[in-house]
């Protein structure tokens, strides 16, 4: 797959801090998770991709455009959803999104039409003529996403899109991000929640203190855990625990009503499936256990 972002030896220093230290990247077109703790260099990388910040060393290309040589050309291809509040509060969502469509180069009529389509897409069809000031956090995040994709970019940079959202809002935002890939828009999703990345991204890039820790397809990362979380509800957890242990699997309670099972391969996964079916239990969740960044960091260290 062609690279949507290519970086070589990318270095950015601020007084007293090295935000990026010789980072090489080849991000595939698709949904890429950019993971790192706060201060790992995610936002700095975004600012460099947008040509808003000049790297101290190294080069970066976005969609084949050298950002240092043609920042305007690069920005033409990119939609950006910042982490912080960034919406003009006294304007309606429709006005905000169509204005940013126009700023992205769309003619007035096309911008208004696409604004209404895109707001419909993110689930704000009925609220679009209300001022943003009256929006909930979830609605504002959707508006921010809408303005990022209104001009039909080749690439969207999403900075912590699920920050501050309640569980259902987070699910919906992740579902939207998941769908962007199917629209032919490449996504780079910056987050410190590895769970979000595991849900929607095909590829993971991990930064720690400005250096590249991992650059691999999500599957590869997830396979390395060797543990899965099985959730059949807290009432039946004990029965399942006993039944799985009887089949020789290492089982532990994860402390919040689900079980954590160590699996050696697909055969063990089949066993879990069969046991759940035999006991006639409702299977709420069966996922690779990869809940915190600490896990991966500690494994890498």
């Amino acid at each position, binding site marked *: 797959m062609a690279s949507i972002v290519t970086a070589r030896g990318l270095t950015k220093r601020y007084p007293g801090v090295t935000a990026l230290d010789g980072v090489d990247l080849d991000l595939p077109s698709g949904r890429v998770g950019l993971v790192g703790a706060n201060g790992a260099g995610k936002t700095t990388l975004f600012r460099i991709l*947008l040509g*808003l*910040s000049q790297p101290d060393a190294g080069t970066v290309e976005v969609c084949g455009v050298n950002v240092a040589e043609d920042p*305007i*050309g690069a*920005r*033409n291809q*990119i939609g*950006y959803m*910042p982490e*912080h*509040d*960034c*919406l*003009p*509060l*006294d*304007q*309606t969502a429709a*006005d905000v999104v169509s*204005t*940013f469509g*126009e*700023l*992205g*180069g*769309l*003619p*007035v009529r*096309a*911008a208004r039409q*696409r604004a209404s*389509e*895109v707001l*419909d*897409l993110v689930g704000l069809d009925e609220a679009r003529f209300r001022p943003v000031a009256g929006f909930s956090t979830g609605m504002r995040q959707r508006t921010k996403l809408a*303005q990022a994709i209104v*001009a*039909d970019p080749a690439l969207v940079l999403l900075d912590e899109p699920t920050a501050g959202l309640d569980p259902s809002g987070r699910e919906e935002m992740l579902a939207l991000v998941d*769908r962007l890939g*199917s*629209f*032919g828009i490449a996504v780079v999703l910056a987050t410190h929640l590895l769970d979000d990345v595991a849900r929607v991204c095909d590829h993971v890039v991990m930064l720690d203190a400005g250096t590249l820790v991992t650059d691999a397809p999500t599957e590869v990362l997830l396979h390395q855990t060797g543990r899965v979380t099985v959730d059949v509800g807290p009432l039946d957890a004990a029965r399942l625990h006993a039944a799985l242990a009887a089949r020789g699997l290492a089982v532990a309670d994860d402390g919040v009503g689900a079980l954590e099972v160590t699996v050696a391969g697909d055969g063990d996964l089949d066993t879990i499936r069969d046991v759940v079916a035999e006991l006639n239990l409702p299977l709420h969740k069966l996922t690779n256990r990869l809940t915190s960044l600490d896990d991966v960091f500690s494994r890498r260290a």
Partner: protein
Amino acid sequence: MSTTTGAVYDRGYRPYDGPRGGRRAAMVALYRTSLRRAIGLRRPWRQKVAPAALLAIAVVPAVVNVGIGYLTRGTPAEGFEFITYREYLGVSSALLLFVALVAPDIVCPDRRQRVLPLIFARPLTGRDYGLAKVGAIFTCVFAFSFLPQVVLYVGQMLVSDGALDYLSDHTAVLWQVPLAAALLALFYAVLGVALASLTGRRMVAGASLLGITLVSSAISGILIEADAGPNEEIRTGHPAGLLNILATPLRLRDLVFLGRIEETSPLSGVTGAGAMSIAVYVVVVGLCAAVILSRYRTAE
């Protein structure tokens, strides 16, 4: 992707393959949005009152003058002018109040609500941003000082004995009025945007614009008074008049209309006052432009 639910899920998203503008289109879009905001379009009615009322008030002297012209036709008072084109532009200096309200309103929230990083993530530069904002204010001030003049001109022409005669007698104002109005509008626009770019608070920006112009006017007045003898009736011939920022665009207006500084101005009689007035104008505009450029060189 699932194909069974695709019909529902993919509703609404279509790739855009129509024409796409670049940097210039983005700048024009920002200019248009700012202009709309300045005159209150797509905003609650409260925001429309001020510009509409201001335009209405600005037209009043023209209507009065034309009315007098109409009523005094064929009487000995015919030809009496309630207000001249030059004086009428002086009325436009009241538009400073409008700039103090509107420039902060289209500039400060972008900084305060952190919209700037989003704007600069689009294909335009800080210079484009400054140009768009200055252009929006310029357009408003120019229109608000030029339109009443058009009303005055057309009205006078219609109530005069011969429209063609009026036209041929008043050809000079056809370039003087727009030039002087443009100089006034540019001065107010760069000053307003430059001060508004320094703060995220609208009140502070508006107050500092009025403050700087009024204080400079007051200081200039005090210096002139201090030097004048107690019995002197006319305060002229004093270079401290140059310090008066409020009067700077009006002196340029006098240069456009009269070719010299007007007799009642404190600068009247000062050698090279015209050139120095132009220099002050250029320095203020240049300084403000530099402030704007440096404030928007990078986002945040």
